[in-house]
C-alpha cells in the first residue's frame, strides 16, 4: 500500500541533499478542515515526519468539498484538501474504538509534537485530552486549537470559519457602513492568521523543549488568534481613541486610499486599480503621474488633513480619471513613478502573475488521482532549508500499511484483522 509515486516539479532534485529544519521530528496530526491542516502542512514542509490520522467514517469535510477535476470523484481529488495537506502521511484509524484509541496512544508516544483542532468535547471523546496525552508522553508538545480555547464558558461552542468570522469581528469590521456585514468572502482567518500563528507557537515551544527538555500544552483559541490579528480597532476603542466605524476602503492615515475601476478590457471587465498613498511624496508623485499635477497644488488636497476632509471630492476625481485608464499601462506608469499601486487580481491572474511566476511561489505537484496541480508555496522563503511543498497530499489511508508496520509494529495479519474490524478504516 505504500505509494512511491515520486516527486515532481520544483522540489525533486533537492530532496536528498537539502537539509530540512525538522528532519527526524515526529508529529502526530489530529486536525481537520483549514486552520489545523495548514499549520501542520507548514510543519511537514519543514521536513517533520508527519502522520495525519483520518477516518473514512468521518472524513475531513474538505476531502469532499472540491473544487475537483470535472469527472473526478472520491476522497482524493479535492483541491481544497490537497492544497492544505502536502508532505503528509495519511493513516486511517477510528480513534473512537477501543483498539483504535490504543493505537492512537502509541502514536502519541511516538510523537515529539501533536496538534488537534477538534472541540474540547470531541478531544475528550477520542481520549486525546492533555491529561491522558501527557501521562503517556510527558515530554510531548501538544497544541489544542479549538474555536474558542480549552477553557471558558464558550469553549464547547461549535462552528466552522464562517461562524468564527462573525464572532471574531471581521464581518463587523469589513466593508462599507450601511451594507450588511457579509464578511470578506472567505473564512479569512482559517488560512494564514490561525494556522501560521500556530506554527510560530509550536516552534517556540520546540525551541524551549530543545533547551530544557520540557514539553508543554499549548491552548490556542482560534477566536483569540483571529482577534489578535484584528486588534487595531479594539485597542483604539478600548483606550478612548475613537469608536469604530466601518470605512470601506479608506484608512485614517492616508488618502487617496481605495480601489478605482479602470477601463474594461475586452475579456476582463470589472478591473480595479488599488491605490494607497501613505507618504506625502507618494501623493504628489501620484498626481504628477496621473497627469494632474494641479491636484497636488489644490488647497483642498494640500495636506493629509485636507485630503481626508475632502475625501469624497478627491475620490470622485481619481475615479473619473481611473475609468479612462488601461489597467496594465496605468499600473506600470504609477509604479515607475514610485506610487504604491496594484491591480485587484483574480486567481487566474495571480497564478500567471509575473512576480509570482518569477519567484516560483506556486509549486506544481503531480497527484496520482488529481493530476498536476498548483499548490501554494511556503509563505516564507528560507535560503538553506526550503519549506516549499515537495510531495502531493496523501490519498485517504495511503500510508496506513506503512505506519501500521513501521511505527505501530503490527504484522500483516494483525493489520488485516484491524481493517476487517473497521479500526483501521
Amino acid at each position, binding site marked *: 500500500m505504500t505509494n512511491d509515486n515520486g516527486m515532481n516539479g520544483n522540489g525533486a532534485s533537492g530532496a536528498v541533499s537539502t537539509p530540512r*529544519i525538522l528532519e527526524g521530528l515526529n508529529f502526530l496530526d489530529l486536525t481537520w478542515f483549514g486552520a489545523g491542516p495548514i499549520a501542520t502542512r507548514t510543519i511537514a514542509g519543514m521536513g517533520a515526519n508527519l502522520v495525519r490520522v483520518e477516518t473514512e467514517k468521518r472524513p475531513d*469535510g474538505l476531502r469532499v468539498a472540491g473544487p475537483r477535476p470535472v469527472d473526478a470523484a472520491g476522497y482524493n481529488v479535492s483541491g481544497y484538501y490537497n*492544497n492544505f495537506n502536502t508532505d503528509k502521511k495519511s493513516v486511517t484509524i477510528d480513534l473512537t474504538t477501543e483498539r483504535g484509541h490504543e493505537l492512537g496512544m502509541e502514536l502519541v508516544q511516538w510523537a515529539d509534537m501533536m496538534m488537534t483542532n477538534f472541540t474540547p468535547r470531541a478531544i475528550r471523546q477520542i481520549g486525546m485530552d492533555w491529561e491522558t496525552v501527557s501521562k503517556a508522553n510527558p515530554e510531548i508538545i501538544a497544541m489544542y486549537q479549538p474555536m474558542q*480555547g480549552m477553557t471558558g464558558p*464558550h*469553549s464547547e461552542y461549535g462552528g466552522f470559519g*464562517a461562524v468564527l468570522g*462573525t464572532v471574531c*469581528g*471581521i464581518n*463587523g469590521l*469589513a*466593508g462599507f457602513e450601511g*451594507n450588511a456585514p457579509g464578511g*470578506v468572502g*472567505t473564512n*479569512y482567518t482559517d488560512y*494564514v492568521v490561525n494556522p501560521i*500563528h500556530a*506554527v*510560530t507557537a509550536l*516552534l*517556540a515551544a520546540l*525551541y*524551549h523543549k530543545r533547551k530544557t527538555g520540557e514539553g*508543554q*500544552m*499549548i491552548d*490556542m483559541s482560534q477566536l483569540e488568534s483571529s482577534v489578535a490579528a484584528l486588534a*487595531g480597532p479594539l*485597542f483604539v*476603542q*478600548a*483606550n478612548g481613541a475613537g*469608536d*469604530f466605524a466601518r470605512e*470601506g476602503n479608506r484608512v*485614517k492615515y492616508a488618502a487617496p486610499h481605495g*480601489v478605482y475601476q479602470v477601463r474594461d478590457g475586452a475579456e476582463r471587465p470589472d478591473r*480595479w486599480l488599488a*491605490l*494607497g*498613498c501613505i507618504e506625502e511624496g507618494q501623493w504628489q508623485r501620484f498626481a504628477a503621474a496621473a497627469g494632474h499635477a494641479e491636484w497636488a497644488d489644490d488647497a483642498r488636497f494640500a495636506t493629509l488633513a485636507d485630503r481626508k476632509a475632502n475625501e469624497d471630492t478627491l475620490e470622485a476625481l481619481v475615479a473619473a480619471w481611473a475609468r479612462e485608464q488601461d489597467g496594465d499601462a496605468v499600473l506600470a506608469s504609477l509604479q515607475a513613478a514610485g506610487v*504604491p499601486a*496594484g*491591480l485587484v487580481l*483574480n*486567481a487566474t491572474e*495571480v*497564478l500567471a502573475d*509575473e*512576480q509570482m511566476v518569477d*519567484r516560483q*511561489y506556486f509549486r506544481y505537484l503531480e497527484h496520482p488521482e488529481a493530476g498536476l496541480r498548483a499548490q*501554494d508555496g511556503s*509563505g*516564507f*522563503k*528560507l535560503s538553506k*532549508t526550503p519549506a516549499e511543498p515537495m510531495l502531493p497530499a496523501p490519498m485517504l489511508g495511503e500510508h496506513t500499511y506503512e505506519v501500521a508496520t513501521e511505527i505501530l509494529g503490527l504484522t500483516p495479519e494483525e493489520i488485516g484483522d484491524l481493517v476487517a474490524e473497521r479500526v483501521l478504516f
Partner: protein
Amino acid sequence: MAMALEGVRVLDASGPIGHYAGRMLADLGADVVKVEPPEGDPARQWAPLLPGVDAPESGMQFLLLNANKRGVTLDLSQPRGRELYLELVKASDIVIDSLQADEAAELRLTAEDLEAVKPDVIHTSITGWGLSGPYGNWAYSDIVGCAMSGTMQLAGMQDGPPEQLPDMQGYHSASIQAAAGAMGALIYHQSTGEGQRVEVSMQEAMSMSQETAMMQADILGTNRERGVPMRGLDLPGLGLHETSDGFVFLVASGLAGSGFPGLVGLMAETGDAADLQEEPYATFITEKMNANFLLEILADPEQVAGVQGMLDHMNEVVRAFTKKHPKLYLYVEGQKRRVLAGMVSTPGDILESPQLAARNWFTDLEDVGRGVTLQYPGPQWQLTGTPAQLRRPAPLLGEHNAEVFSEFGIDNTALAALAAEGVVTA
C-alpha cells in the same frame, strides 16, 4: 515562569509591514530592540491617535504593535549610524528589516553585508514583493498587497467595489509568515549553529487566504467572484440573519451540530416556531433537513423546486424569529443547543466578550512615559508552560539609546555627540 524565547535577541529595523512580527517574538520572551530613523517610524504619526499624548508618541497602531520592544534611533544612511547598526547586528540572533533590494544595496545593508559581520545571523526580510523578481523594488502599501494577492477580489458586494481586508491584513499576513519563518530558522540555528535568510513577500504571504479560488482557477479554469455565496443557495437557517440589534450568522441546515431541528427547538422556547412543529413541516424537518438532503440539493438543484414553497416559508419564519431577539441571545442560546450560530461582533462586543473575559485575555499596562494606562488585547496563543508576558509599552522615540548603546562603549558624552550629528535622536 520562563518564557519560550528567553535569551534570544532580535533587532527589528522594519517599517510598519514588519512591526507585528517583532511583537510576536517579543511576546514569546525575546529581547527585541526596535531601530527607528531619528525622525521616528512613520506609523508613530498614523491616526487614530491617543488623545492627550503628543506626537510622536500617540499613534495607536504603533503603540499596539511595538509593545514589549525596546527602542533606539539610528540614521542608517550615515557611516556612523551604519557602523553602530552592524554592532547591533553582531549582538543579535535575528535581524528583521523591510529594506527593498535597491535600498539595502544603497545602504550597504544587504543580507551579504550582515553576514559579513555576523555569519550566523538569521536575516528576516519583510517587503511587499520579496527581494527578487520584476516587482522587487516596486512601491507597496497594505491595500496593494490585498489586491495583488487575489484576496481582495473575493471581498465585497456583487455590485460594489472589491473591499480591502480590515486592519492591515496584508501587513499582518507578511509579519505572521515572517515570524514563523524566523522561528524555523532559529530552530535550525539551535541544532546546527548556522544562520540563514528568511524572505517574505506580502503578495505571497496572503495568497493562501484566497481560500478555494486559486485551486478552482487551476483545476477548473474559472474564477470565484465577490458577493456570490459559495453554493448560490438560500436555504433556511443558513447565512446572515438580522437580529433586533445587529446580525447573527447561522449554519443550521444540517452540516453539523443539531441543525435545523435544533434551531426549531430554540424558536419554540420563545413561542416563535410558528407552524414548523406541525405537519407537513415537522416530518419534513426531521427527515429532510439534514446533510444528506443538503448534499442531494447541491448535486441537483432542480430537486429543490418541489419543496421551494416549504423552504421559503421556513426561511421567513426563521428570519422573523431572529429579528425579534438580540444577537447575543441567539448566539449563546443557540450554541447551548448545538446550533452553529455566531453573532456579528463589533469591537464593543468583543471588548465585553464573556469568553475573553473568563480567559483574562485583556491586560492593563501602565505606560509611565506617556502617563497613561492602556488596555491591550491578549496573545494569539497560550503556551501553558511558558506563557506570553506583556512586559513594557512601546518605546518612546529613542528611549533606550543610552541603555542599548552603552553596551557598545557609547557613554553619554559620545551619545550627545552622535545626537549633534543627527545619527540618533537627542
